[in-house]
């Protein structure tokens, strides 16, 4: 009798194996990668349908949808990696409308030669982040490009969610007199990623703040349903985010430098790199704007949540036909906090 096992497929070599062109070809190799890696890690009832699309029940109400591509370099950084970042990034973009995120999709562009071990680490980190957030990855796609045509792995995620009734959070709702709050220490993500750049390597204990903020947002909306604006200050930092809102709402803003929470290590790193922490990226922080009478209640709700324990009121919305964001410096002067010019740090998310 023959000992050959029919229907046997040699499992993927997650120790030494590498992505090759067949993994994106639509053939057996691709099916195997999906089965052994993506399905195994992301496993949920929608993905198990094994169709080209996910079918799921749609709740009534206003849906929101957001998409985000992730190209961070390096792929692994203190406090996270491109995997969890790609889950958090999209959940946060959905949550900034006040919505409860429901489903995610994930699309991978892999570079030929990328180690399967690294890919598994990234996918498992995504799966963990999605499980922790309670938001399943319900559909996905994989493509492979030739060596030299990508940078290891790029991940695009899309999320949808539903906004509770009575919540209307939008960038054009900032009004003169409103207070500006941030949920915690600024600049951690950018500095953590920067510390590993090959031409820059420096030692720091700073970890990326990458985190899913929808739990914090839910607590905030419960305390103050009429939050005017929410936004996560990612690329371009708080300065850029506030300039966007100021333009959208046709208002000015005044910040107080000595109220803005920034870690000493982040200040120090920015000091010697010649950067301004207000322009450095965050991946687990949000800025909120609300009516002055709601500000203390909102602050208390934020501080009661683990991701908002260092929240602070950092400024207020003012009338200004030129829509400048200004700051009273700790030194005692005033200055414009302008849009970011050029690119302070490429490829941080």
């Amino acid at each position, binding site marked *: 009798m023959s000992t050959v096992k029919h229907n046997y497929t040699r499992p993927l070599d997650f120790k030494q194996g590498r992505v090759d062109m067949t993994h994106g070809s639509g053939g057996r190799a691709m099916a195997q990668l999906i089965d052994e890696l993506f399905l195994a890690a992301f496993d949920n009832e929608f993905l198990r349908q094994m169709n080209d699309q996910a079918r799921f029940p749609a709740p009534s109400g206003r849906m929101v949808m957001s998409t985000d591509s992730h190209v961070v370099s390096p792929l692994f950084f203190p406090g996270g990696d491109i995997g969890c970042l790609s889950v958090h990034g999209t959940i946060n973009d959905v949550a900034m409308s006040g919505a409860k995120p429901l489903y995610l999709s994930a699309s991978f562009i892999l570079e030929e030669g990328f180690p399967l071990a690294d890919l598994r680490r990234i996918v498992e980190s995504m799966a963990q982040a999605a499980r922790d957030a309670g938001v399943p990855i319900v559909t996905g796609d994989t493509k492979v490009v030739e060596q030299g045509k990508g940078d290891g792995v790029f991940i695009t995620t899309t999320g949808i969610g539903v906004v509770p009734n009575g919540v209307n959070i939008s960038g054009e709702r900032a009004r003169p007199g409103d207070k500006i709050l941030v949920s915690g220490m600024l600049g951690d993500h950018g500095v953590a990623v920067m510390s590993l750049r090959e031409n820059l390597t420096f030692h720091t204990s700073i970890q990326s703040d990458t985190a899913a903020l929808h739990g914090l947002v839910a607590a905030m909306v419960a305390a103050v349903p009429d939050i005017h604006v929410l936004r996560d200050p990612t690329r371009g930092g708080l300065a850029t985010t506030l300039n966007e809102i100021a333009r959208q709402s046709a208002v000015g803003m005044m910040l107080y430098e000595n109220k803005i929470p920034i870690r000493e290590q982040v200040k120090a790193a920015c000091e010697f790199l010649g950067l301004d922490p207000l322009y450095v990226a965050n991946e687990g922080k949000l800025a909120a704007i609300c009516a002055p009478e709601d500000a203390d209640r909102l602050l208390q709700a934020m501080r009661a949540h683990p991701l908002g324990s260092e929240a602070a009121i950092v400024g207020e919305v003012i009338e200004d036909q030129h829509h400048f964001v200004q700051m009273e410096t700790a030194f005692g002067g005033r200055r414009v906090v302008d849009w970011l*010019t050029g690119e302070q740090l490429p490829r941080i998310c």
Partner: protein
Amino acid sequence: MKYVDEFRDGALARNIAANIAREADPRRSYHLMEFCGGHTHAISRYGIADLLPANVRMIHGPGCPVCVLPAGRVENGIQLAQMPGLILCCYGDLLRVPAANGMSLLKAKAHGADVRMVYSSADAVKIAQENPQRQVVFFAIGFETTTPPTAVAIKQAQALDLKNFSVFCNHVLTPSAISHILQSPEIRQLGVLTLDGFIGPAHVSTVIGSRPYEYFAEEFQKPVVIAGFEPLDVMQAILMLVRQLNEGRAEVENEFSRAVTRDGNIKAQLLVAEVFELRRVFEWRGLGPVPYSALRIKSQYADYDAELRFQIPAVSIPDNRACECGAILRGVKHPRDCKLFGTVCTPDNPVGSCMVSSEGACAAHYSYGRFREKAS
């Protein structure tokens, strides 16, 4: 942050501001030039102008290395970068400086040139080691602060016997620029620009010391106070200048005594003297040709001189006619006097060099100070 926050203390700033307000004579004005872009940046970023009485006016000087680099030299750099196989390394600020036809190194990079931003000259040497089959040119710019590191890179390349590394040298000298400003017709004959005193450079002075400024104080009867780049340093230097002017003194004083000595860093000076020599004349953006104001690589190190290796031609490109960078760099005009400021010329689309670097007078004013213009 220790050793930094101490120099940014708001309470102390108000204290010094009160002293300046009390001691500044209301019957006269004080026109003080901060030579360095580092000071320009600090003045704008910390809102120092808000803390000064109306009759104490700061005039921004030409001490921004990117701003004074003539467009022709940037054009040379772009042509180098476009040579097949060549890697051009430069400091980040230089990437966006406009040359002819709106071209810049950043745009050349987008068109396929291999332009790499480095944080130090040593990184350029490392890139040359890692790419032995390719020519690597370090586009060296800056005042006396960045010159010693370039000298080190050249000596390092020599020690490593690197055949593919060279330096496109554009290092310039602070004292000759200050003399040039003081001898300009606007000051000497026309009298359209009043300059009562100087805030002397911080980092440059750590290298050259305070001695080179003694000549200006003596010859032109202008007080000089060397100051650090922190905002309290600048405030204190302004107070010291006001006091000198009130007492009729014109001396070199050193506020930045924690880092600057009278003789400076002798070792760095010797290193620079070993590798570089004076150019007879060098063109500055805004100031035009300034005699003995720049350095070139000595003949012993000619192997590392990109100008010789690639036979780089002298290219002269006139600035946009409406651009006031020249007058602004000489302190004759303010950014708000320029028609292009904030309209066609912004930090995202700079026409003139003063709008490029965060140390440039126009960019600093645009980024940090322009709300004052709109308010008035």
